[in-house]
């Protein structure tokens, strides 16, 4: 058994709205998988169905070979989910909350050592006796991640885990999650920070209107949709000039930089030659590689 998560023709309808529209997808064990999409694409609904928080209208989902409805107890043992919202129980401190969470999964006192390790690795030691209400947003986020890990699940799902988290903490979280992935945990991540998905995920699915519009390795996706852009900085009066003289070579202008989309590398020298022939002075130039954000915007934009 190599599959960590399998979605088979999963649908979720809310009256007329098709929140998830027939998704079939397999995630391998040990993968770092990214689920991207604009708000309302259906990412969280898909994850919530996997977690058993939402019942699918049709289709089936399994985690580590266990059906999330028929064998829900085994399936839930196999997965730790970090919810998107900063939710917490106001009656307890961090350590108590984590021990309770482990207890729900049948973990006894012998698991406390692991709980303490999770606390330490997430830099929560100083706050472990602090009531959840008194934690900052970033600390609450760490505690949520810790909560998903206390029962040592082989699959970890992070739903927008770095939303509202400062850069330093984000880096720490990612290095910790990377470590877990290196230790063999399967990671599924939904995020709006596409550069993170690009840096971390082996494979990416992009969702739009409840459907997957792209699914491939991050590398292949970047290759397939690779677009190189030539950016040249010109004087303002020259920008106006080329707008009329280079009608067959469209470009976008922003802050004195003109961006030309290149179909092939040789297009760059053609554009530079044209500008030289028109005696337009190039103040600066650079070639920009397409990133996941460009691909994401291209695939998910309405047009």
């Amino acid at each position, binding site marked *: 058994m190599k599959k960590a998560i399998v979605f088979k023709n999963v649908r979720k309808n809310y009256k007329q709205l098709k929140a998830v529209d027939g998704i079939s997808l397999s995630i391998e064990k040990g993968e770092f998988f990214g689920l991207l999409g604009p708000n309302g694409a259906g990412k969280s609904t898909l994850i919530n169905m996997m977690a058993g928080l939402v019942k699918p209208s049709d289709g089936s989902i399994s985690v580590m070979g266990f059906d999330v409805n028929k064998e829900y107890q085994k399936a839930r043992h196999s997965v730790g989910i970090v919810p998107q919202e900063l*939710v917490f129980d106001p009656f307890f401190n961090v350590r108590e909350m984590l021990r309770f969470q482990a207890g729900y999964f*049948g973990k006894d006192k012998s698991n406390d050592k692991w709980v303490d390790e999770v606390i330490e690795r997430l830099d929560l030691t100083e706050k472990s006796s602090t009531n959840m209400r008194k934690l900052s947003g970033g600390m609450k986020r760490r505690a949520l991640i810790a909560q998903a890990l206390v029962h040592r699940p082989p699959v970890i799902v992070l739903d927008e885990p770095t939303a509202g988290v400062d850069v330093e903490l984000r880096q720490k979280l990612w290095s910790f999650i990377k470590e877990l992935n290196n230790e063999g945990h399967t990671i599924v991540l939904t995020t709006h920070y596409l550069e993170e998905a690009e840096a971390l995920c082996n494979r990416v699915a992009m969702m739009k209107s409840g459907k997957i519009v792209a699914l491939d390795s991050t590398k292949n996706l970047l290759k397939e949709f690779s677009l190189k852009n030539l950016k040249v900085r010109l004087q303002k009066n020259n920008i106006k000039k080329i707008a009329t003289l280079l009608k067959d070579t469209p470009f976008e202008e922003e802050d004195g930089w003109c961006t030309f989309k290149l179909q092939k590398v040789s297009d760059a020298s053609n554009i530079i030659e044209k500008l030289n022939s028109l005696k337009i002075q190039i103040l600066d130039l650079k070639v920009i590689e397409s990133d996941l954000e460009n691909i994401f915007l291209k695939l998910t934009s309405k047009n």
Partner: protein
Amino acid sequence: MNTLRDQLIGTWTLLKKELLRFWRVAFQTVAAPVITGILYLLIFSQVLGDRLEVYEGVNYLVFLIPGLIMMSLLQNSFSNSSSSLIQAKIMGNIVFLLLTPLSYLQLFFAFLIAAIVRGMFVGICIYLIAMFYVDLPIQHPWFVFIFAFCGGGLMGAFGMIAGIWSTRFDQMAAFGNFVIMPLSMLSGVFYSIHSLPPIWQNISHFNPFFYMIDGFRYGFFGQSDTSPYLSLLIVVSFFIILSFITIRMLKSGYKLRN
């Protein structure tokens, strides 16, 4: 993975958390209802204390105490499960339970037992304080226990139904204000239904709170307004029906999963 031992640990953990939850705010969850009960006791004992004899050899103050104990027990059992669920739903932290392998039966028993424990704890506190005022021997301890247990359980299950069904605090408050309070006030806590006109006596027989309080009172005095066995039958039946509804709601994920 998810052995019987795991399940027992899971249920015990949730029960422990629920008990700690009310204990952490004991001033509100224990002290307040005990003080309210004692205030009722002081006021009614001053006004009516020795002037009425409700049953033979049972003056009004002595008559009142078991009723007050049971009323507080019932109200607090209801409050424990209902407030825990509605708070968790509104705060969003119910997700921590829903993501776990805890089954609907584990959830049910943990919430139910916590509700019974809180109700009984408040009841015992009122009883202990009342003993400073009057001598209140218990004639049939098993009746006292069984009515306290079933009454607390019945109200704990009803609290779960209210907590699952409600989506706002005002809906929850409506249960307290328009169901629990009138039914408990009109149940014979403060009077014997034999002192009512016949029509109100008949109406009282449709109030399940009447049987819980009357049966509980029988445990203390060996006297009651109706047969304690009929009361027991009705209370146990209601307990089973409400438990069944609660378990169905938890199993289906009604207003919890989706």
